[in-house]
Structure formats: C-alpha cells, structure tokens
C-alpha cells in the first residue's frame, strides 16, 4: 500500500494531529513514512500544509510530486482548493466546508463550494457542525479524518487504535470524544459517496 496525502488548513486547526494519527496507524503496521510540515511564519493564522507519505516500500522524497497525490485532506474549504494542482486525476479530496474567515477578502463561500463540486472525487462535509452536535467542538479535525478513513486503506479499528495511542496521555474522555468524531465523519463519507456512486 502507498498513499501520498496533502493535509491542509489554517494554523491552529489541527492538521498535525490528523497527520500524527495516520502516521501512528502506518507505523503500527510497520510501514515507511515521511511527513514534512510547515513551521515558522505560517503559524500566525496563515495557511499551513503538510505532505504525508506512507508506503510499504521505502519513501524517497519528503515532498509529493505535483499531480500525483492520492488525497487532499483539508479542514478548510478554500485551503483544500489551494492544493488542487497536487492532486492526481483519480485522487480524492476530503474537506470541511466550514470556512475559516480571518482575511478581509475571503471569497463568497458559494463560489468556493462550487469549485469543490467540480472536483471529480470529493467528500465535503460540515465537520464543525458535526463535531458541535457531538459536543466535541474541538474535534472537527477528527471528523475530517473519519471522512477520509474509507480511502486510507486502513481498517477502521487500526485508526481507532492510533487515536488511542496519540491521545492516550490526555485521558479517556478525550479519547472517547475523538473516537466518536472519527465515526461520525466516516458515516457521512460512506453515505455521501454511495449517493454519488448511485
């Protein structure tokens, strides 16, 4: 198995927790991994992204070649589009549709969503809303990870196990909330892609 994943969002939205969870699942399966992250300037509310590569074979480049990413996983809709040139024509885009508006010229959200609709394979969901309904407002990132789960080639149990390892130190309650968020995201992805397929 080999997956090249672009993670995208805005500083502070938790894309590195998504990367860490997928990375943990990969490590537990004995896979190779490279994950490059952005540090420094971009953390003050700027756009952030990470290249995550997991594979059964050794990984050479820390960066994913343009046009060859298997997935874009984004916690913000405009940020998901910023990385479209990286996505392969068969690749999947999984994104939150809740905009994070910290700039004056943020485009009209309808236009952003219209662009999303043009992406051949995508799952778009209101992760913030879903997380809030679960009483887990801070876990929107795990909802997104859940929505990406069906495309990751891990069993759902493997991802759950990774969440337990990553959030273990923060206590049972945090683990429970994140697991629920993960499951809710996955359910949305499964039902929406079935509709698309139909």
């Amino acid at each position, binding site marked *: 198995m080999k997956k090249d994943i672009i993670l995208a969002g*805005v*500083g502070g939205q938790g894309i590195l927790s998504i990367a860490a969870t997928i*990375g943990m699942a990969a*490590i537990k399966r004995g896979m*190779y*991994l*490279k*994950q*490059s*992250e*952005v*540090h*420094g*300037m*971009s*953390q*003050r*509310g*700027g*756009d952030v992204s990470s*290249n995550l590569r997991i594979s059964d*074979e*050794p*990984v*050479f*480049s*820390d*960066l*994913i*070649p*343009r*046009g*060859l990413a298997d997935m874009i996983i984004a916690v913000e809709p*405009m*940020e998901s*589009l*910023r990385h*479209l*040139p*990286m*996505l392969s*024509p068969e690749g999947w885009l999984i994104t939150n549709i809740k905009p994070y508006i*910290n*700039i*004056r*010229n*943020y*485009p009209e959200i309808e*236009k*952003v969503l219209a*662009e999303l609709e043009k992406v051949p394979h995508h799952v778009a969901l209101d992760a913030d809303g879903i997380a809030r309904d679960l009483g887990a407002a801070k876990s929107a990132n795990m909802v997104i990870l859940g929505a990406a789960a069906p495309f990751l080639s891990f069993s759902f149990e493997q991802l759950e196990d990774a969440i337990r390892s990553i959030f273990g130190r923060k206590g049972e309650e945090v683990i429970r909330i994140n697991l629920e968020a993960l499951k809710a995201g996955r359910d949305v992805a499964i039902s929406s892609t079935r509709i698309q397929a139909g």
Partner: protein
Amino acid sequence: MQKLLLLGDEAIAQAAIDAGLSAIYAYPGTPSTEINEYIYHSREAKEKGIISSWVANEKTAMEAALGVSYAGKRAMTAMKHVGLNVAADPFMNSAITGANGGLLFVACDDPSMHSSQNEQDSRCYGKFALLPILEPANQQEAYDMTRFAFDFSEKYGVPVLMRLTTRLAHSRAGVARSESREQNPLSLPANHRQFILLPVNARRQYKKLLGQFPEFERESEVSGFNSYEDGPDTRLGIIACGIAYNYLKENYPGGKVPHPLVKVGMYPCPKNHITRLYESCDEILVLEDGHPLIEELLRGMLSRGKSVHGRLDGFVPRDGELNPSIVAKALGFAEVPSVPVPDVVVGRPPSLCGGCPHIYTYNALNEALTEYAKGRVFSDIGCYTLGALEPFDAINTCVDMGASITMAKGAADVGLSPAVAVIGDSTFTHSGITGLLDCVNDGSNVKVLILDNATTAMTGGQPSAATGRIEAICKGLGVEDTHIIVLNPSPKYHEENLAIMKKELEYQGVSVIIPRRECIQTATKRKKSEIKAKKAEL
C-alpha cells in the same frame, strides 16, 4: 532498538545526545530551532547533565561552543543560514584554531525563503573556511552524520559544518539510534598556543589546515556518505547533493536511476567519483539545493569540455528549492498533468494573533506619526515585522537583526526626522545594543521602540535574553533616564501611549520607549503549565 519518528532537526539533536555531547548553545531561527528545542526539553539530556542554552546570538553561541571544545568536551551550535553571517567571525577563525573536543556547527538553509530574508547556501561558507561539510539526504543520515561528525572533528582537530535545508529539517521519518557514548573528560589542548591567533601562530595554524585539506579530500573519497552508483545509460551522468538525491530517486520506479549517479553527502567534493562520472558520461546534470556550487566548480569560468547542466543553464530554476517535479523537468520527463489553483483562492498571509501587544503599539505609533510624511519607521525581524502588512502598513524596512536601530541612526544623522526604530526585545539583545551605543555616542536623533513581549515569539517562544534587563541596559549605555519610558500596549492605555509617543517624536535626541506586555501565546502556555503544576501539588 525501536525506531524513533524524528524531524531531521530532532535526529541531529538525538544523535548529539548519543554522541556524548556536553553542551549546545544556540539562538533560535527557522528551520534550525527544533535542534536545541529537542535537547532543551529532553529528559535524557537533563539526566546526562548536558547543557542546553538559548543565548544572545549566534556569535556568542558559537564562541561558547568553541570554549567547550577548548576544554576537551564535545559541543555544538545550531542556527539558521543567516545566523552563520552573525557567527562568521568565530566560524572562519575556528577553522584556523581548530578544535580540541569534537565541535559541530549546524546551519539550516532555507531555499525558497519560507521564513527568511534570503536563500544563501552555507556550503559556500564551509568551502570558504576550508572545513569539511556534511549534507544529509534523509533523517537517518542526519543522525549518522552527526555521530560521525564528532569523531571526525576529534580525529583531525577541526570543527565540522553540517548543512541541511528546510525540507529535511522539518520532515519526520523513522530513525534508528546507535549505541550511546559517554561525555569526554575535561582536557586542555596539548598545544597551549593552538588557540592564540597572533599572526605568528595563525600562520602556522593556517598552514596546518591547508596541509590537512588533502586528507579531508581523501576522507570524502572513501566516505560512505558519498557514492558512485553505476547505470547503463551514459548519455547523462548525474550528481545529486543532499536531499536532491531523494527527489531524483523519486522519479524512477523503485529508485532505480538508469544513469550513472554520484551522491554527495560530504565535502570537499569526492573527486574520484566525479572524475569517473565525467569520464564515463556524455553530459552531466547537477542537482543541488541552494547555490550552484558543484555546478560552478565543474563548469569552470570558461565552460569548456562536456556540457554541465543545472541552475546556470536553466535546466533547473536559478532560485528556489528543488522538488521532485522540478527534477523531473530537468530530466526531460513530460510534465504530469495537473489542474491549476482555482481563481477563487486568495492568499492567506500570516497575521498578528488577536490581542497581540504589537497591534496596540502599531496603532499608537501610526496615529502619532500621522502628522509626518511616511517612510520613517525602520523595523527589524520578529512577529512585529507583520506590521508591514495590512491593516498596519506601519514599517518601512526589515533587513537583518539589529538593522532597525543602526539604519534609523544613519538616516537620522543625515537629517531624516523623526527616525523611528522598532525592534523586539530578543532582537535588541541579539544585535541592537551596540547600535544603540553608537546612537548615544554620536547623539543621534533616533526614537527606539523596544517591543518587550518577554519572549522570542516568532520562533515559538524561547526565553529572551532581554527579559528584566532592558531599562538597565539602556541606562548603562547612556540613554537619559527621562527618555527611557515603559508603556503598556493595551487598548485601554491608547490615549496615554499616543501622548507619550507624540512627545518623544518631538524630542531631539536618543529616546527609548518600551511597550511591555507578554506575548499572548507564551502567556497562555505559561498559565496552562502553572495550572498543571498546581494540580500536581494538590
């Protein structure tokens, strides 16, 4: 041993701990910061009594490391590429003194300037100083090379420079550790004059270094960090340095490059491998992140002989970092089709955090300056550089650390008034103090705002050497007491702050205003850890 998942920076740090490091001194700077951060927070390092300190600047850091080496112990410093400019004096001269205990300098370059003012290539410094240079291609090599560097440094009695770039510094992968080693005992240099660079000694030492250089070349030729990989298609031979090796391999299934290939990880360049490549192939392609260093060497001034491709003939862009797609193009592969970024996507530049003290300093300063023409604010490097962007548009320069005060001085000396310098607390102790002394001595008409947020915020909140000392420093330099004014950059004091700034702008002479309030990010972190500590007490 189980593999650790480490950033390139962290692999270097862990390797140094395992190599019997006694001390690391550093000044933060992206993408090098995580090296000292890792050791600073490592329990293992603490248990081993390893000194890890954030110091005033890269020069003081490197000199302290040199002192540790003088005393026979292993030492390291890590900095961003422009930090090596600040430390250039001890760097060049330490090549002449040589080392006693193992001494490693790490410089992290930032091609594409993700968070820097330029994209200079530290290998040029290494070449300039005639020092051996290591350039890892991946996280495991970063670990292994660090282990190697300390041994090499002690074997030849020279400092070693390690150079890596942002992508490796900030990328994570599995790293296997090797057996750890004890620290060295204290032991002074056998030659008591080794570190006295009086001309008579310096000449002797320099000749020694020149005499060692052929040995460094021989070491490079036999080093496992350099290699020749044969390939059937000799129409092209490829030289790939450091991380460029990965980008090259990425372009071929299973990493099987059909061309003869020289991987360079240690300098001086392995002449044997490169000669063989040149003789076996019709043309050469050089892939290196940063400056076309090897490419220039191969081409020579006259560009005679076989074609050498790279950054100088447009096979690779002249600036910016490499990536697999750029390398694919240089290899002549068809571009992978990809869609463009949709037009609706707009830039999302970084901005000051909500409630950041710098916001209120700029609000007051902008208002105080409305009666003067624009173009009078000389700034510096830190979070407050974001004052250059909307909605503030408050500053007119940002060049190098400390340049705010000295540029304002120069402009003021020739008649610009008012001339305002805006500098952060950490930047002030890094390189601002000496400039302020010049202002006092010359009676320059400058207004210096030292933004004291009690931390080095830009790089993630390391302690600031300035904390608790700024007024005393200014007083000691000779700034008049009545013109050292502390204010609180909060909206509720806006009118008060504005009045102070207006008044000081009118004053003819050196004036220091210190807007003082803790950075929101560090304050939050500090409160969290205080609550945690309290809970632990209960």
